[in-house]
C-alpha cells in the first residue's frame, strides 16, 4: 500500500473522451481495489512491523496483507458458517466462455428472467452433494416484460409530465433528475450500476411504438 495519497483518477476512452474524478469521491471498496492493482505500486517508503499482517494455515500456507498504519492491535477473529444461497444465471456468449451473473438477493424467490424473451421460473428438482444443494429452475415462456416495461414507461412519463423525446437523447447526466423520477415510478432498480437502469430507460424511450 503506497504511503503517498492518490488525488485524481482519469479514464481515457477510445474515442478520445477523457473522464476525471477526485479519487476520494470513489466508493471506498473501489479505492481499495484500485490501490490493490500492480500499476499503482509506488516506490516503498518507510515501513514498520505495524504495516503487516501475516497469516499462517495449518497446512503451512502463509499470506501477507499490508495494512494501514493506523491499526494498533488485533481485536478478535471468528468464522461465520451458514448455508448461503446464491443464484447463478449463465448466458451463452460468442466469447469463449459463458457470461455469469450472480444473484444474491433472495435467489430462490426470483420469478421471471428476461433476456430477449421473458421466462417464468419454475422449480425443477435439486441435486444434493454433501452440504451443498443445487436447486434447478425450468424456464417457461411468459408475457413479454419489455412490452410491459414500455407501457409502464409511457404511464410514468404522463404522470411525471416528462417528454419522451427528452429521454431519447440519452443525456443521463444532464437529465438525471428525470431519469430518477421515471425509474422510481416504474419501480426499477439497478443491480450493480445505476447507469444500467438509465440506459434501459433510454432504450425504452427510443423503442418503436
Amino acid at each position, binding site marked *: 500500500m503506497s504511503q503517498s495519497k492518490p488525488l485524481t483518477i482519469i479514464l481515457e476512452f477510445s474515442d478520445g473522451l477523457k473522464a476525471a474524478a477526485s479519487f476520494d469521491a470513489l*466508493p471506498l471498496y473501489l479505492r481499495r481495489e484500485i490501490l490493490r492493482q500492480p500499476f499503482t505500486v509506488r516506490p516503498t517508503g518507510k515501513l514498520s512491523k505495524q504495516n503487516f499482517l501475516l497469516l499462517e494455515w495449518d497446512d503451512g500456507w502463509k499470506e501477507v496483507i499490508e495494512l494501514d498504519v493506523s491499526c494498533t492491535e488485533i481485536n478478535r477473529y471468528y468464522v461465520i458458517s451458514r448455508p448461503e444461497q446464491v443464484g447463478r444465471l449463465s448466458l451463452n456468449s460468442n466469447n469463449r466462455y459463458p457470461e455469469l451473473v450472480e444473484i*444474491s*438477493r433472495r435467489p430462490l424467490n426470483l420469478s421471471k428472467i428476461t433476456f430477449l424473451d421473458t421466462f417464468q421460473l419454475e422449480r425443477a428438482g435439486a441435486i444434493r452433494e454433501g452440504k451443498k444443494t443445487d436447486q434447478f429452475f425450468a424456464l417457461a415462456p411468459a408475457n413479454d416484460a419489455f412490452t410491459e416495461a414500455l407501457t409502464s414507461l409511457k404511464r410514468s412519463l404522463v404522470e411525471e409530465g416528462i417528454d419522451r423525446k427528452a429521454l431519447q437523447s440519452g443525456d443521463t447526466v444532464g437529465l438525471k433528475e428525470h431519469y430518477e423520477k421515471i425509474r422510481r415510478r416504474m419501480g426499477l*432498480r439497478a443491480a450493480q450500476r445505476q447507469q444500467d437502469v438509465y440506459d434501459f430507460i433510454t432504450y425504452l424511450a427510443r423503442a418503436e411504438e
Partner: protein
Amino acid sequence: MMEVKWCGFDYGQCIMEPGGLRNHLVYGDIYKELGAPELIPEKIRNYRTLKEKYGTYSGIKEAHRDEIYGFVLDNDPEAIELFCKKEQELLEMGEGLEDALLYLQAQGIELQVVSEMKKTLGPVGTDIVSRFLKARGLVTYFKELITPQGKMNLENDTVDLRYKGFTKEAGTLYDVLAEELGEHGVQPHEAVMVGDKPATDINPAHDRGFKTIQYKGFIDLGESKADVVIHSFGELKTILKKKG
C-alpha cells in the same frame, strides 16, 4: 403437562427471529432503491466494522443506533427511513408460533408479550415490537405488550405506566407482573414465561415462582433454571393446558 392461566412470551429471538435480516438484503435493497447500488459493498463493510466495535449487531441496535444512521447511512433521512422499513420486513416469526398461539388461545390461556425493549424507545405504537406484532397480525393473540416503558395496549395504543422503570433483568418487572396477575386471581405458579435468555426471561421469573420454558429454537444461550426446554413452539401444545 403444565397447567396455567397466563402465558408470557419474550419478543427478540423468540416470537421474532432476526435470521432473515441479512446485510446484503438490507443494504442491497436500500441503496438500489436510492439509486446508488455502487455503494452497497461499502455500506455493508461499514456496518460490519461497527459490529467489530460493539461486538454484536443487537448491541449496536440496542445502544448505538445513531451510529448506524451516521457511520453507515450518512444521516440520509431517506436511507434511515428505508433501513427501518427493511429491518421490519425481513424479521421472521418463530417456527410453529402461530399454530401454538391458536391452541393456547383456544384453551383460554391469557397471552401477553413481555419484552425488555431496550432497543426501541419511541412513541407508543411506533416501536419495532408493536409494529411487528401488528404487521404480522399477532394482535389477535396479544392485546398487550409489557415493557420497562409501561404496559402498552396494542388495540388502542394507550399505556399503563405501572411497569415503567422496572426491568426483566433486575426481576422487578416480574414483581409488578405477579402483583397485577394476583389482582385477577392468577398466582405466579399458574403463569408461565417463555423466552430464550436465561438472564432476563427465565431465571428472574423462576425465582419469583413463575413457571418457565426456555426456547432454544433460534439460539441456545446456555443452561438456565427453566422447568422445560423447547426447540419448537409446536411443543407448547403438548406441554401447556388451561388450569381449570
